[in-house]
């Protein structure tokens, strides 16, 4: 019997397993697919502080940024401390960006000479703000290697990864969760962590609790590998910040452009609430291309060779769900991180491990409470 069962072998589940094992707990990670096969596998690997409004999520992001740097010292997942550059098209937007940066209180520089940061940026932009803490990892490697690091450091007997195992229900006794039913039989544990990402709502439903996690689709265009890097940092327009926080169901896009160690350039970002529809939308791809070319005209002659979509796990208030579920003792949640799951994973795992081992979390989890949503409307 494990102390903890983590449902989901994405980056959040991996971080939960890593920190729980570090706290001395015995962990089993389950995934119905392979490691990192869900939203983590469709992510860009963003570790951002720049796009968060001041408040609990920014606090979480700052803690997580620190933890990612610690983890990167010893675990190889292509951590790139490249920094993020947010650019403004007009002086008015630049003013808003600057004001936000001051409110955020994180390390930043006003980027007056944009060309010094990004020589290929379009002419005529008003300016930008540079956030040196913004970074990127290869998210699939990060998830897989975090689990491996937990095994290597804390014992292969203490940390087990079981792929291809589907959770079909919860075991309960005396009003508490005591384990899960799976496609491979029942598994007992003192605690179960729901780290099922976009499918976190479904897992919660199996346990009989309501958690409104919904998919918010995003497309990414991937270019041919470039011999000479054209984009040094993560570069995005101010519109990204407002889109991230928006409640709009319809299509929203903003330019997010960054190079990767493999030489490709990743181009995002789109947001739409269309369920789990994987049909490729050419209008979305067209907009992503147009916005990227507007920001970096040099990309006009660069070819896209691949595109894919993923589903961000989105909650109505755009905040993740982290903590014990008061409605169902023994059940914990670590999901609903929307587009920030990679960045927020270590802090989520760290704080949850504190809870699991009976300590009080070093950051107030009040804003991320699982029972903060109104009960499901019955129609």
């Amino acid at each position: 019997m494990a102390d903890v069962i983590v449902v989901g072998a994405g980056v959040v589940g991996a971080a939960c397993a890593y920190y729980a094992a570090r706290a001395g707990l015995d962990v089993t990670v389950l995934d119905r697919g392979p490691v990192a096969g869900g939203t983590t596998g469709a992510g860009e690997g963003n570790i951002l502080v720049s796009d968060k409004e001041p408040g609990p999520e920014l606090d979480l992001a700052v803690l997580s940024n620190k933890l990612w740097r610690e983890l990167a010292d010893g675990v190889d997942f292509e951590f790139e401390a490249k920094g993020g550059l947010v650019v403004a098209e007009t002086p008015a937007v630049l003013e808003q960006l600057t004001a936000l940066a001051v409110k955020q209180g994180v390390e930043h520089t006003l980027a007056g000479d944009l060309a010094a940061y990004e020589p290929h940026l379009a002419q005529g932009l008003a300016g930008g703000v540079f956030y040196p803490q913004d970074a990127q990892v290869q998210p699939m490697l990060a998830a897989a290697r975090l689990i491996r690091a937990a095994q290597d450091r804390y014992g292969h007997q203490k940390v087990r990864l079981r792929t291809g195992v589907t959770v079909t229900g919860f075991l309960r006794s005396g009003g508490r969760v005591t384990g899960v039913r799976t496609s491979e039989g029942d598994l007992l544990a003192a605690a179960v962590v729901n780290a099922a990402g976009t499918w976190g709502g479904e897992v919660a439903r199996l346990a009989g609790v309501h958690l409104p996690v919904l998919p918010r689709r995003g497309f990414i265009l991937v270019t041919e590998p470039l011999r000479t890097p054209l984009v040094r940092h993560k570069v995005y327009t101010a519109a990204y910040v407002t889109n991230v926080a928006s409640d709009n169901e319809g299509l929203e896009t903003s330019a997010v452009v960054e190079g990767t160690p493999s030489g490709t350039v990743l181009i995002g970002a789109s947001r739409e609430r269309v369920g789990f529809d994987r049909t490729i939308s050419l209008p979305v791809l067209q907009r992503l291309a147009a916005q990227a070319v507007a920001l970096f005209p040099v990309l006009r002659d660069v070819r896209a060779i691949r595109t894919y979509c993923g589903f961000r796990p989105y909650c109505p208030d755009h905040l993740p769900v982290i903590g014990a579920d008061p409605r169902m003792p023994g059940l914990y949640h670590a999901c609903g991180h929307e587009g920030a799951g990679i960045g927020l994973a270590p802090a989520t795992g760290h704080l949850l491990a504190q809870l699991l081992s009976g300590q009080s979390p070093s950051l107030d989890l009040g804003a991320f409470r699982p029972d903060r949503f109104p009960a499901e409307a019955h129609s």
Partner: protein
Amino acid sequence: MKDLAGARPEPAFEITVDGRPVSVLPGQTVGAALHAAGIRSWRTTRFGGRPRGLFCGIGVCFDCLVSVNGSPEQRACLLVARAGDEVVTS
């Protein structure tokens, strides 16, 4: 070789490959012309620096990429050569 198909090709023209002249029969692809001239390795990979040239020959594998007249990463096996083309290998 020409007897094989009863071919009477039109007069050859020249292209340059890294500045060196290479003779081409009208209608041949850049890749075929290089191959015919004994140039079979014209690209190095970005991680291992491994030599590459034609492999699939039909535009699928992208191993034969060259720069032609300043346009980078062209598939040499698909691109029909034109007189005076400047081919640059990488």
